[in-house]
């Protein structure tokens, strides 16, 4: 079991103070940040949750997925459909959503591992599954097909807190996704310190050696895929009830899958806090670039009439390339080392 002390124990005193401060700032964000900052922060936590689930597969077990949008999409469509068709509230609908996402993950994993499809080829398999499901949903009229699937939102639904039906004010969504992302962090820490986690790391580092030592590689890989897809399914439920509209081309788009990976890559693949840290760097970075351009125009450093649309993406991409080039293990391990946030020997 996880005790509260387990979560703090890896942190150095500086880490505890900084963590507490960041947590306090984030908890108070709706009061100081305004709705725009809160929307960006909600997106950050959502991506952190999906990134954490992706990191569990690649970072912990060495399984590269570039089709994680598949599990998010399955979770989203399942819960949204059950809510619309039979009125099943998402707090219960999340269970079949997880079940279906896990089932799809297991099917994909079994096909891949049973026939020894690994590395890049496994990544291609994940893309193929995501595309396959997208095409299927494109033709399923009761899921809205290409026209999209929509959740009805009344005026009353936009205020207050209704966690059972996931209806309420934007603050509710913010705190919910924050709790889910931090919950995923706790779960991953627990898993990483468990026997399962050690088996995964053994498989990741040397699959043949792990197998020779008696690790049931197929089984533990399947566990990784199942847990990862289940976590992504939960993120999908949140996505459906936050966005209230689902389009197959958007939900299952490979771009969504890549987005899920970027935070982890920048933060540090295989680290615990890397996906959250990386997403917190990447998403606001884009916004800061936009604001900087606006300010430069405002101060007439740049002609205000100059069209600089897309420059943000260019600058953002350049910075990401720099991070990947100069800190290939991610920023989080480097930050931890520089600021001594984690006690020696603890997972980052």
């Amino acid at each position: 079991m996880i005790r509260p002390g387990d979560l703090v124990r890896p942190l150095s005193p500086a880490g505890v103070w900084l963590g507490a401060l960041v947590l306090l700032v984030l908890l108070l964000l709706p009061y100081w940040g305004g709705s725009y900052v809160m929307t960006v922060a909600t997106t950050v936590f959502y991506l952190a949750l999906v990134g954490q689930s992706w990191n569990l597969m690649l970072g912990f077990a060495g399984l590269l997925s570039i089709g994680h949008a598949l599990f998010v999409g399955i979770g989203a469509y399942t819960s949204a459909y059950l809510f619309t068709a039979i009125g099943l509230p998402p707090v219960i609908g999340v269970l079949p959503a997880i079940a279906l996402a896990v089932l799809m993950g297991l099917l994909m994993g079994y096909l891949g591992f049973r026939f020894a499809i690994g590395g890049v080829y496994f990544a291609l398999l994940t893309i193929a599954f995501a595309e396959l499901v997208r095409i299927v949903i494109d033709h399923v009229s009761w899921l809205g097909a290409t026209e999209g699937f929509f959740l009805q939102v009344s005026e009353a639904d936009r205020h207050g807190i209704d966690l059972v039906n996931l209806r309420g004010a934007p603050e509710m969504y913010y705190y919910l996704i924050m709790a889910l992302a931090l919950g995923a962090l706790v779960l991953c820490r627990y898993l990483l310190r468990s026997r399962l986690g050690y088996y995964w790391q053994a498989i990741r580092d040397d699959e043949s050696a792990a197998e020779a030592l008696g690790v049931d590689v197929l089984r533990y890989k399947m566990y990784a895929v199942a847990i990862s897809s289940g976590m992504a399914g939960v993120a999908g439920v949140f996505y459906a009830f936050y966005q209230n509209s689902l389009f197959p081309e958007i939900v299952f788009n490979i771009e969504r899958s890549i987005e899920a990976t970027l935070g982890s890559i920048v933060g540090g693949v295989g680290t615990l806090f890397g996906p959250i840290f990386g997403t917190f760097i990447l998403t606001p970075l884009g916004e800061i670039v936009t604001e900087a351009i606006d300010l430069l125009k405002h101060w007439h450093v740049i002609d205000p009439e100059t069209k600089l649309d897309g420059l943000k993406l260019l600058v953002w991409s350049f910075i990401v390339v720099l991070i990947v080039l100069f800190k290939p293990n991610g920023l989080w391990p480097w930050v931890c080392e520089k600021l001594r946030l984690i006690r020696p020997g603890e997972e980052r």
Partner: protein
Amino acid sequence: MNTRRASAVNRRTLLAGVGASAVAAAVPLRRGLAASTLKVGVLLPRSGPQAQLGIECQIGADLALPILKTEGYPDLEFMLGDTETKVDVARAQCEKLIDAGAHAIIGCFDSGQTMAAAQVCEQKNVPLVVNIAAVPKLTELGYKWVFRNFPTGPMIVGDAFKNQKRLFGATGATPKTVALLHVNDTFGSSLAGALFALTPKFKMPYKIVEKIPYDPYGRDFSAEVRKVKAAKPDALWTVSRLNDAIAITKELVRQRVELMGILSTGPGWYDNAYLKATGKFGDDVVNLIPWYDENKPMTQKLKAAFAKAHPDLLMTTNQSFSFDAVLIAADAFKRAESTKNTALQTALRQTDITNNVTLGKGIRFNEKGQVPYVPCGAVQNRGGKHVVLLPQEAATGKPIWPMRPWRER
């Protein structure tokens, strides 16, 4: 010692963070303006895959400001937002525009992005005037702040059939067989699927003999065109995008596939880039699409301004519907005499504009915020320009149908 060092850095980090946050939070405030100006957030895809289309929409919106001023409409100030062709960015940018003081939002070209913006506008009680988005649900979910002057998907499909019948009736040349060639992405396959399924319902005089999907990223369409040739259809109906439309045309010419005509529903075949790339071989294609009415006085003003600002380009759907969206906002502001959201909402509900740009009798919203019928036109490419064939009241020329053989051009 290590702890102290970390703590020192923490304080600096904190100060820098607080400073950066303060700057970021203060930025929107600089945009504050007097209430005599309506601040309109123009939310479009300005980067990402739909960037070019968003820029085309912006041209229409930009041209609206001086024209509407001469027409006696009050001042509008644009606040620009970029969706980056992403749904979640559309949502965040819409929040940002409203936080920064936008009284109304115009956008977002794409259905998914518009749905995301609609969520925010409903939450914040800020009017959203849709320029381009065809998904029917947008105005069927009971939204109170969403107003759309653009045909829904079923309107576009229905008019495509009706205009074909009118075209065949007017020229006396009716194809008996048609091949349907479509891009195999969500847009293409859904539209082509609807066209294929509804052909019998509309009692069309022809039979679709071949339905040929193709890869959206394809560059070589020789196999697809060969299939068309083998099916020997009288006419070809396409659902494409730009680059594929150009490549298909060149391939049709290369393989000497002679047809009674080419019909297109969707983008590509009327675009400026298409006309430039295909030259005389792009002529005679009939586009069944939302369009503008050249006979309306406002359209003539817009066309003149457009020709002056962009002499190398032809005005299309994107500019005209974006212009109308600005017109709708300005008209509501003029009557509301206030930037207050409820006053604007009431004024928008009472909109009754006849001197607009797009096809149809004018702009009046129903209780759902939708203009009940936004007609689509039949527009033929001719000599590198557009000729409106249908509807009759907006026609600027007679059809060339059957189209001229490739070798006689």
